[in-house]
C-alpha cells in the first residue's frame, strides 16, 4: 500500500529534518508511552523555539528519564502546552518551574481531557467544540462560552501538531501499531493530529499483515517513521520508579 519504507535506521536520522519553531506532541503518561529515545535524539539535534505538547513537563520522578523538561533546560523550547505546569503534590518542585517563573518559557495550561480532545479534533477535522470542563474557573476567564440545553460550555479549538513522538510495543512495516496496556494513553491521539508521526517501537518491526486487522490500535495511515528501540544501554527503556519518601 505504497512503496516507500517507513523504517529508519537511527533515531538521529528520524529527527534530522525537524525545523526550528515546530510544534511537537510527546506521548506518555508517567513512564508508559514516553518516547525517551526520540527526546534524547531531539536534544542532540538541537532544534530551537519549539512548542511542546504533552501531559506534563516531567522531572518530578526518580530515576529521571528524558522528558519535555530536559528540552526546556536545553534551551530548545519557546512554549509548552500541558495539563501540569506544576506537580500533583505541591511539595514536588519541577525543574521546569524556574524557567516558567522567569518568563524564559511560555506555558498554556489545559485540562487533560480538553488537551486530548483538542488533538483528537485536529486529527478529525473538527476545528472547535464545546466542553463543560473548566467552566467557572480561572481558565475560562475572558473566553467564549455558550449555553446549550441550559448548561454552560466553553469553546475549545483544535490543536494541530507538526510532529508526534510516540512509543509503541509492536509495529508492522506499513506502520500499524499496537500498544501494551497503559502505553497507549496520548499516543494514538497524537498520531492523528500530527503531520508527521515518528514511533519508537519496543519489538522488531513485523512484515505488513502480521497484525490482525481487528487488533490494530493505530492505523499505519497515521504513521510516517518507525525505529526499533535497541537493547540497553544503547536504547532507553522504562525502569522501575523509586519509591517516594514520605
Amino acid at each position, binding site marked *: 500500500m505504497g*512503496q516507500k519504507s517507513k523504517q529508519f535506521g537511527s533515531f538521529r536520522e528520524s529527527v534530522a529534518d525537524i525545523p526550528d519553531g515546530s510544534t511537537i506532541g510527546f506521548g506518555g503518561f508517567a513512564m508508559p508511552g514516553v518516547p525517551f529515545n526520540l527526546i534524547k535524539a531531539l536534544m542532540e539535534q538541537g532544534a530551537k523555539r519549539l512548542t511542546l505538547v504533552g501531559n506534563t513537563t516531567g522531572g518530578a520522578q526518580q530515576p529521571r528519564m528524558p522528558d519535555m523538561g530536559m528540552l526546556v533546560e536545553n534551551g530548545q523550547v519557546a512554549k509548552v502546552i500541558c495539563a501540569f505546569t506544576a506537580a500533583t503534590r505541591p511539595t514536588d518542585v519541577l525543574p521546569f518551574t524556574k524557567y516558567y517563573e522567569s518568563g524564559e518559557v511560555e506555558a498554556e495550561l489545559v485540562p487533560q481531557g480538553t488537551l486530548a480532545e483538542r488533538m483528537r479534533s485536529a486529527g478529525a477535522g473538527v476545528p472547535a467544540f464545546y466542553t463543560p470542563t473548566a467552566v467557572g474557573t480561572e481558565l475560562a476567564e475572558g473566553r467564549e462560552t455558550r449555553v446549550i440545553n441550559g448548561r454552560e460550555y466553553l469553546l475549545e479549538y483544535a490543536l494541530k501538531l507538526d510532529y508526534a513522538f510516540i512509543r509503541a510495543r509492536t509495529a508492522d512495516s506499513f506502520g500499524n501499531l499496537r500498544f501494551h496496556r497503559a502505553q497507549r494513553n496520548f499516543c494514538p491521539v497524537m498520531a492523528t493530529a500530527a503531520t508527521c508521526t515518528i514511533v519508537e517501537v519496543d519489538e522488531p518491526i513485523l512484515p505488513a499483515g502480521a497484525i490482525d486487522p481487528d487488533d490494530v490500535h493505530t492505523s499505519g495511515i497515521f504513521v510516517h517513521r518507525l525505529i526499533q528501540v535497541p537493547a540497553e544501554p544503547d536504547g532507553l527503556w522504562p525502569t522501575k520508579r523509586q519509591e517516594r519518601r514520605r
Partner: protein
Amino acid sequence: MSETKGLTRQQMADRMALEFQDGWIVNLGVGIPTMCSNTDTGDRDFTYHSENGVIGYGGVASPEEEDLLLVNAGGQNVTLKPGASVVHHADSFAIIRGGHIDVTVMGAYQVSMTGDFANWKLKGQKGGGIGGAMDLAACAKRVFIILEHVTRAGGPRLVTACDLPVTARGVVKLVSTNYGLFEPTGDGFLLREIAPGLTVDEIRATTGGKLTVADGLKTVQLSR
C-alpha cells in the same frame, strides 16, 4: 446505461486512476469509481479506505475468500491487503474529515465550472441519498469526479451552475468523462486530454461554460 461515444466506463476509471500517486489513501465511490481499483498503475500502490472503517481493502472476494462480515462501502464482499486495519464509523469519518484521504473519486449528476457538484438528490425528490458523500466532498484533499459527458437527453453534465442540490461547492479538481479529462476553471472547463474519436467542437457543444483546450492537447492513452 445507454451506448455512449468515446471511452468505456472502465477506460474513464483507468484514466482517473493514473493520477493517483504512490502511497495515496484513496476512497472510491460506488459504481464507475470502484473500477479505478482494476487499473494497472505499475509500481504505484495505494491504500483503499471505505466509509465503514475498512482501511486497506483489496479486490472483490472470490467465493472461497468471501467473509460475509467484510464489505466495502458498496456492500461488496472484499479481501484485505497486508497492512489492513479496521476502525469504527466515528474514527473512519475522523480520517475523512481530518483530511487524511488523498483523493476521493465519486460519480455525479452534474459538475459546475466553479467546482461544485451534485450527486445526492434528484429533481423534485423528497430526501435523498447522502451517505458519506458530503463528508468526503468537503474534506478529502482532492475530489475527482467520473461521469458520462452528456445526459440521456443529450444535455451537458459539465454545467455553468448546478441546478440540482449540490453535495459541496468549489471542490472538484478533475473530471473524467467518456469525452476526456477536464478541470473546472471557474468560468468554464479546461480540456486536458481528449478521448479517441471525439472532436473539440463536439465537446464544446456539450459542455457548459467556456471550454479551453490544453496546449498541445493529448489524446487519452488507453491500455485497454
